[in-house]
Each structure stands twice: as C-alpha cells, then as structure tokens.
C-alpha cells in the first residue's frame, strides 16, 4: 500500500516535473527521440530504460536494468514490449535486447556516438522516471575497470543536482547519438555534514579516533580513496565513445556480440617507455607465444607503445582472431612476436 502511494506520487510528479527541468530546446529534443525509448520493468517496478539502436527491434540497456534472459518493457505510450536478452558486454555494461513486437518505422533509432562531441554541451539522460539534463564535461578521461583491470576511455558528464538514482541511465546528445549508459558516479565527500559517523555509532568514541571535536573513522572501507567528488553536482562516467561504438557495432553484427581483442597480460608502465608485462594469464595468446613477466611491449602492429595507456588504447583497435606483430624487449634482446588476440573474457 505504501509503495503504491509512492508510485502514485512518482507518476504524478516525475512525468511532469522532470520534463519541466529541461529547457524548451531540450524538451523538443526529448519529444523527438522519446519513442525510441522503452522503460524496462521487473514485475511492476521500473528497473531501467532501453534505447532503440536498430529498427528491426534491437535495443540496448545497462546491465543493471536486466537480470535473466527476458525482460518486460513498456513504451512511453503504454504498449507492452517483451524482450529477450541477446548478449551482454562487460566492458561497457551494455546489454543487447531484441523484441519481436517492434513495428519498424515507429521511431528513429539512436545513432552511434562519434568523438566529435562538444565539451560543455548539453546531454539528456533518460532514467526510468523520465529525462533529465546532463552536461558533457570531458572525453579525455581514462578509467580502469575493476576487477578486470581493463583500461577504457571514459566520457565524463555531470548532473547539476544532488545525487539521485542515475545508475544505468541512457545518455544521448541532441543529434540523437547515444553517448552511452551511465556506468559510474564519482564518490562525493559529505560536504555539509561534518563527520556524521559519530552520530551513526551512537557516541563519540566508537570505532574512531578523536581529534579536536571530530571523529575520524580509523578503518574506512577501501573505496574511500581520493574523494574529490563535488557535493552539489553529480559527476558520472560512461565508457567512452570509441568503445561504445565498437560494442554497438558488435551487437549489430551477425554474431550479435562485441569482441575485444586481448593478449592476456597485465602491464604497468615500463621505465624508459613501453608497457611492462607483470603477469601473463595461463592459456592466453601471450602465454602461448611465450611472453613473460618482465618483457616490455614496445610496439604493437606498427604502433609505438609508450606506456600502459598506449598499450590499452592500441589493443582496443585490434581485432579478435587477426594476427598482429609485437615488438618485445627482453633484457637486451629485441624479439618480434606474432600473436593472435583472443576474445577478452566477459
């Protein structure tokens, strides 16, 4: 009964109020593209949104919006649309959905993202509850996905609002390019609350050391690293355009999956340039080609590798199954190694 009340409130409010947060122009853009958006449900609870990428009925959504192999969707004009999960990509967290109930021509599919976005430009983020405004900050961020340690370019966006449930939101820009699905948000320090840990623990000295008048947690969880997040702004990341594009292309290929080339190594920066192999995964192409920890990857298929970032970037451009040549420095020797990248583990 309670949840019904909240939902009623939500329906009453979100439908209008969130659309109201967009400017005239943004609202017009939303109106133009909203038919290509379907809300996903688990039971009667909205779990996410899916975006049309191909008029034959292929949609993408974020991994957190769907468990299992099927999911129910409802278009914004109320039509029931059932989906099957076709494929999941772990790098981008995108999931490919297919429905047979899609009528071609109903809406214009979203387009692949290009790198040409304007920094500072406005974007629209679609939540299950409706669209809100987001701003594009930067495409020059680098991210490392834990635990696979995959390095991917990130697109940074911000919401000028207190945090809300934006996880999995679909982000698109005004010309209909799908920027991505919102993968992560930056942790925020508690800007205005002082150290509220003490209130939580029911007294000043539980689990904390006292300094002056405040309490500092002695053993915070490891995820409190460099808390740089702003407080009245939510900073969020989607995987970068290049990777999203690769994934979408893979989704729409006959195999319906996105394959990322992987050698099966973990690297750090090598002193003097290159990517220093720290670990070789057993059974991987690198393992089979007898690469060793301590080897330095200096060149991949005529691309100079200056550091681990270059390594990750160049690998993003390679294809699974297509042979490439590596230049490896081992001690004082230089080796030329042919290797066939395999599919990165999903």
């Amino acid at each position, binding site marked *: 009964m309670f949840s019904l009340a909240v939902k009623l409130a939500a329906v009453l409010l979100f439908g209008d109020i969130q659309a109201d947060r967009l400017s005239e122009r943004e609202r017009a853009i939303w109106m133009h593209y909203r038919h290509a958006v379907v809300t996903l449900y688990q039971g009667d609870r909205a779990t996410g949104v899916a975006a049309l990428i191909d008029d034959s009925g292929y949609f993408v959504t974020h991994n957190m919006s769907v468990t299992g192999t099927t999911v129910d969707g409802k278009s914004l004009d109320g039509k029931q649309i059932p989906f099957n999960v076709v494929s999941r990509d772990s790098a981008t967290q995108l999931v490919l959905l297919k429905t047979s109930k899609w009528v071609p021509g109903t809406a214009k599919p979203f387009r692949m993202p290009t790198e040409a976005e304007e*920094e*500072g430009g406005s974007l629209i983020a679609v939540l299950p509850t409706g669209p809100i405004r987001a701003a594009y*900050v930067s495409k020059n961020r680098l991210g490392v996905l834990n635990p696979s340690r995959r390095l991917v370019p990130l697109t*940074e966006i*911000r919401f000028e609002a207190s945090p809300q449930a934006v996880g999995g939101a679909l982000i698109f820009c005004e010309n209909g390019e799908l920027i991505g699905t919102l993968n992560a948000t930056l942790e925020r*320090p*508690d*800007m*205005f*609350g*002082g*150290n*509220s840990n*003490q209130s939580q623990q029911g007294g000043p000295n539980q689990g904390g*050391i006292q*300094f*002056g*008048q*405040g*309490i*500092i*947690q*002695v053993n*915070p969880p490891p995820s*409190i*690293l*460099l*808390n*740089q997040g*702003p*407080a*009245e*702004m939510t*900073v969020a990341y989607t995987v970068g355009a290049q990777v999203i594009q690769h994934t979408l292309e893979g989704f729409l290929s006959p195999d319906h999956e996105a394959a990322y080339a992987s050698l099966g190594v973990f690297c750090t920066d090598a002193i003097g340039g290159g990517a220093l192999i720290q670990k070789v995964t057993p059974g991987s192409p690198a393992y089979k080609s007898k690469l060793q920890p301590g080897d330095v990857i200096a060149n991949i298929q005529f691309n100079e590798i200056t550091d681990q970032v270059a390594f990750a970037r160049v690998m993003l451009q390679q294809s699974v199954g297509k042979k490439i040549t590596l230049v490896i420095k081992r001690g004082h020797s230089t080796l030329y190694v042919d290797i066939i990248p395999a599919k990165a583990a999903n």
Partner: protein
Amino acid sequence: MVESTVMGYDASLSGRMELDTDSALVMKAREGDFGAFEKLFDRHRLLVYRFAYQMTSRRDDAEDIVQEAFVRAYQNLHRYRDEAKFTTWLLRIVTNLCTDQARMQTRRSALEQQEASGALEWMTTEESEDPVHNLESERRKGALRKALNALPAHHKAVIVLRDIEEREYPEMASILGCTVGGAKLRVLRARRALKDRIAPFLGEEAV
C-alpha cells in the same frame, strides 16, 4: 561545541565587546540575522580568499570564488553541524568549489591557460641583500609558482592546504573527506608530482 575564534571579552571595559563564537553567529544567522553572517564573513573571508587565490592565481577569480563559497555557506547554514569547526566547513566548501571549477572548465584557449598558469601579477621582493641571490630565488619562485599552477586541481589543493596554508592533517582529513592517513598520502603524492615538475628548474641540486 567548537569554538574557533572567540573575540575577547574584557569585563572591565565600559563598552561591551562581542562574545560571539562562530557557532553562536551561525545560530543567529540561521534565524535570519544577516549581520551575524556578515561578521562570520569578515572573520573568515581572508582564509577563503587566500586559498582561492592560491588555486586560481587570479584575484578576480579568487574573489568570485569567495563570493560563491559564502553564498553556499549561507544557503547551507542549516546543514552545518557544531561538531566541526566552522573554518573547516568553510574550507571544505571552497576546496570543493575550486576542484569543481577545474572540472567544469571547458577547453580554454592555449593562450588563456598559459596566462593563467604563469600569472604573476605581483612579485614580493626578497629580503636578502645579494642581488645575484635575489634574481635566482625570484626565478625559482616563479618556476615554483608555474609548476604549482600546472598541477591538477586535486594535487594543488592539498599542497595549498598543507604546505602553504599549513593546516594540520586531522583538519585536512575533515576538509577532504578522508582519513588522516589518506590525507598524508595525498599530500605525499602531490608533493611528488610537484617535485617532478620543479626538479628541472632547480639546477644542479636536483638531478
């Protein structure tokens, strides 16, 4: 209750002096006494300004940040809790503002950036008598200022807080929202980043 700055009260004086602690002023300001907030502003604006200036190297930018910081403080007075020092709270606001600003900055022209990072609107003169030494230390200071400005905001902020404004680590932890150990680590990392940038300028003494 934290008392940060307490104005002196001398009972023997015929005139009355204000005995308001920061917390007392905050409470008054919350109830609508803008004069109380102005007093807080008077007391602490230099602190905020100094930090903002170190972060931006431009007086007008710094003044804008001071304004924004106090506006934010004003709007959020109801969220300020007495367990933290008011100055810590303020510094947290302005630190976030400065790093937010760095984040929000769209592409600036190369020229603008150069100007910003090299901006030396003023030069303090060295007390030393030796003209050669003067020149050398001026040059180094200029180089250090440039190197500091070239640091990313999250490094610059901790260097300013710790090595220029000399805040203690527990306070820094509170400002940054991390542990004392985390604050120390951040400072070390920032110093290293700065050292990497400045080493070439320090002549033979470095590498």
